[in-house]
Structure formats: C-alpha cells, structure tokens
C-alpha cells in the first residue's frame, strides 16, 4: 500500500506544536500509539494555544512546525499571504461527533424556528457555529440574523446557560468535554446539531508551511499518514481511544476524567480532504466579502503526501 515502511525512515524530525486546551489531535494520538517511532518523528509540546489562530501566527513566525485551526481561519490566513499547505483535517462532524445546541429542560424553545430573537452562545463569530446557525435559519426560510449570538468561552458555557444569561448554548464538536459535563449535570436538552444542517464536513485543518513541506517531504508525509492511522484506530476502538485520550489529557496537566465525554475525531476513514470541506468555506467567505473571489486556488494549497513521495 501507500504506507511507508520503517526502512524509508531517513528523515527524522521533531515537530513543534501548540495543543488546544480540552481537545486532542490525531497526531498526538499517533505519537502515543507509537506510530511515529519507527520514522524518528517526535512531537514537542510548546504549551497551550489560546485558540487555533494563535498556532497560525506561531507557524508563520517559525516558532512551530504545524498549525491547527478552524477552516475559515486557515483560509483567511492563506488569503492574507501565508504560504501554508493544508495537511489533513484535524477533526470533522458526522452523526455522533457533532456540535449541539442545548437549552434548559424547561425552556419553551423546541425547534429552530423558536430561536427567533433568542440569545445563543458560541465560541466565536464568523466561524463554524455561526455558519451552522445561519444555514439553519436559511433552510427554514428565516433571515440569517434572526437570533442574537454572543461569544462565551468554553469554561463559562454551562454557567451562563444555567444562569439564563443565554437561551441556548452552542457547544462545538471540539468542545465535547464541556458538552459532556453539561449533559452529565442534567436538566438540559438538545435542539439541533450541526450535522442536521451541514451534513458531514471537516471542521478544521492541520497546516504546514510550504517551505517546510518542501524541505522535509518525507517527515511531513509520515506525519500525516500516522495521524490518519491514529484517527482510523480511534474510530474503530472508541473505548480504548477514550482511555488513551484520558492519559494524554492527564499528561498535559488537564482533567483526564473528561475523556469519558470524548466522541472521536469525526473524520472519514483515511482522513481525506474532500472538495466540499474546503469549497463550502470558500463559498461562504466569498459571499461575506472577507475572502476575495478567486484568491484561493484550492488544489494549490493542499499538501499531497503521494506527490511528496513522487518527488523523491
């Protein structure tokens, strides 16, 4: 098959990266599972990022070797002049691994139509949850700004919902630790999820600098392949995966107990990059005017391990 054998391991490399609090990435799992060992690939944790885009700044400055952010931020960063390559989707949504919009049990809100004029918390505007809500309204024939969105960081999601400071808490698929905690404490019910609205879609990407990928094609390839393998393994062995993720969180100084709420990466087998994963966002951002039409040549920004191999 396409996977390399340890014999090809001629490009040992230590990838510096910034993990995001409360979430793990396939490549972290791959390292724990020992997939990188034969190739001399290591990961070096440089500390937590405050959010995905910060990893992109650090990547641009050369402080780390891989960034990881929501698709919209990745595309904007490339449009802004960064020569980044999309390596693989770090997570995605599908049934069971999805963002959920919760209300309190006794809330009068039952359907998407009831959201009109209500306050919904999201992690940030202009990104995944924001678009999910717009799309939901669009499908019901409502204007895109029918509800009031406010930004609430993860740790305050439950508190603000229960204190009725917001009507609806939107909890991203990448924030399942908060969602799990919320459900475990009871008294809430879901209204809808992002897969109801968007179908299956990648959520964010791991990216390299192009010059790095060109300088270390093999290391980059083994990195991506190992991550894809780890994602497949996690999908096939969810119980074991939760245990490993728990340990991983513990080792990062986080609460490993929260791993029991972990749902998986939500990726397709082999963690492929589909046209829709990128295309959906190119269209959405162009419509908004934030991304000038034609600024992004989708095929030119995707790292292809196969071609890297061909380059050898």
């Amino acid at each position: 098959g396409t996977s390399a054998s340890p014999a090809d391991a001629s490009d040992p490399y230590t990838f510096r990266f910034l993990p995001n609090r409360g979430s793990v990435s396939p490549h972290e799992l791959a390292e724990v599972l020992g997939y990188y060992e034969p190739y001399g690939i290591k990961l070096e944790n440089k500390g937590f990022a405050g959010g995905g885009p910060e990893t992109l700044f650090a990547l641009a400055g050369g402080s780390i070797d891989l960034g990881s952010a929501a698709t919209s931020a990745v595309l904007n960063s490339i449009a802004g002049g960064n020569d980044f390559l999309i390596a693989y989707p770090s997570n995605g949504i599908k049934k069971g691994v999805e963002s959920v919009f919760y209300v309190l049990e006794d809330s009068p809100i039952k359907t998407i139509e009831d959201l009109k004029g209500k306050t919904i918390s999201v992690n940030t505007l202009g990104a995944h949850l924001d678009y999910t809500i717009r799309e939901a309204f669009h499908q019901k024939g409502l204007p895109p700004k029918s509800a009031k969105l406010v930004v609430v960081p993860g740790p305050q999601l439950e508190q603000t919902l229960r204190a009725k400071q917001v009507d609806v808490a939107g909890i991203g698929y990448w924030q399942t630790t908060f969602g799990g905690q919320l459900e475990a404490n009871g008294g809430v019910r879901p209204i809808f999820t992002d897969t109801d609205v968007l179908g299956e879609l990648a959520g964010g990407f791991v990216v390299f600098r192009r010059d790095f990928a060109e300088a270390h094609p093999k290391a980059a390839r083994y990195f991506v392949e190992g991550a894809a393998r780890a994602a497949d393994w996690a999908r096939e062995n969810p119980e074991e995966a939760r245990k490993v993720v728990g340990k991983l969180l513990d080792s990062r100084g986080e609460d490993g107990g929260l791993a029991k709420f972990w749902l998986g990466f939500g990726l397709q087998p082999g963690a492929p990059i589909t046209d829709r994963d990128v295309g959906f966002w190119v269209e959405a951002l162009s419509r908004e005017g934030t991304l000038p039409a034609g600024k992004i040549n989708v095929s030119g920004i995707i790292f292809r391990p196969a071609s890297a191999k061909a380059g050898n």
Partner: protein
Amino acid sequence: MSVQDVNSTVVALNGEEETGGQKPLQSLLEGAGRFLSRYGLLIGFLLLWHVASIQRWVNPSVFPPLDDIAAAFWRGMTQGSLLADLGISLQRSGIAFVAAVAVAVPLGLFMGQIRAVERALDPILQLFRQTSALALYPVFILLLGLGELSKVFVIFWATIFPLLLSTIGGVKEVDPKLVEMARVYGASRLQVFRRVVLPGALPSIFVGLRLSATMALLMLIASEMIGANQGLGFQVMNAQFNFQIPLMFSAIFLLAALGLAANYTIVLLQRRLCRWSNAPV
C-alpha cells in the same frame, strides 16, 4: 515682482525683519519643522512598517501593508459594523471611566488626607487591585450576568486603581504648609480638600486620568471577549480568531486613535485647569 526682490534683499541684509513676500514660505518651513520634530518618529515608524511589509522583511500576513489596513478600515466603516462597534465601545469605556473618576478621585482625596481611612481601606483595595479582571470572569459573570453591566464593570475594575493610586500619591505631595495655612484661616475639611488639596493634587490626578483613560480603552478587549457580539475589542479578537489581520489592525488603530484623542483631551483640560503653573504639561 521687483518690489518683492528689494524686500527680500532687505531681509537678507538685516537678517531679522520679515516682510510680506517671504513670510508664508518661511513660516511654512518652520511649521513643517515643528511638525516633523513632533511627529517624525511616528511617521517614520509607519513608513518602516509599510516598506517592511511590501518588501517582505516581515510576514505581510501578520504585518499587512498600510493600504490593506486602510481598505479594511474603509470597508469596515461603510459596509461592516465598525461604526456601530465604535459607538458601543465608547459607551462601555465612557461609562466605566466616568464611574471610576467619580469613585477614585473623591476616595483618593479622602484616603490621602485621612490616615485612618487609608489604613482601613488599603489592604482590601490592594487585594482587589492585584486581582486580574481576566481571572475573575467567572465571578463577574455569575454576579453581574452577560450584559452590559459585567462588561462595564470589568473595565471599571481595572480603570479605578491607577487613578486611585495617583490621586492618593498626589494628595500626599501637596505642600503641607499650604494645608496648614488654609486650616489657620478656618477652612473646613471639605474646603481644605476643594481649595488646597484638590488643586495641589491635580497634576498627579491628571497623570492618573491619562493612565485610567487608556486602561478603560485597553480593557475593552478583555471585557468584550465574553458575551459580546459587537464592540471594537470584540472585533479585534474576532478578526484575530478568523485571521482577518487587516480588519484586526483597523480595530486596533481605531482603539489607539480613541486613546490618543482621550489623552489629548485630558492634556488640554489640564492645560486649562493648571494655567497658573508655568511648567509645560
């Protein structure tokens, strides 16, 4: 023309008298010199930025050229929400600043004058002062909710302390001989405050006002990180989160411009109020 030539010869000869024909150019040059001596560094900095970005000495996706920022600013003002953001942010900072002034100046005058009050209040105020508004989010949200109140309070919290400390410091630097004089002339505590302590502490209070006004604007970013969907601080973080760097810098520059305007206003006010002094402010 020939008359002017004669005039300018006269000027060249005695080197002091200035006559009609020469004046505009000369005063223009002088004005330009003054302007450059004041704003030269700033202009140089902006030029350096622009050139560094265009020449790719720095990463232009993080340091966009100034025209990109200007374009994003224009779009943000005309089509986007920057104008509304400006309005709401001004309101938040303004209310917080006014509240901070209303509390800190009287409290500071009081604490600076009356040792017992200072002794009693100092420990708890110091404790509060040492506590980051950012760290106390959960507490603020719990107690004050997600609305305007908590945002204004976060700003207020950070804004009050520089002013309070400066005011107390200013009061302690007031010449005790003047306070004695006022007391001998029968001034009540309040009159000593108003007529001696307050004017004497004014220069320090103004330093505090400038620090606090800046703080009120800087804290917009922290305060609008939660429960917000508009405001300049929100725009900065949101644009950063979505990697819309030109928009981010538009909002940052707008915030900085507000800060400069506030600073300038306070300095003007100080010049007016402290006209008796011949020290340049």
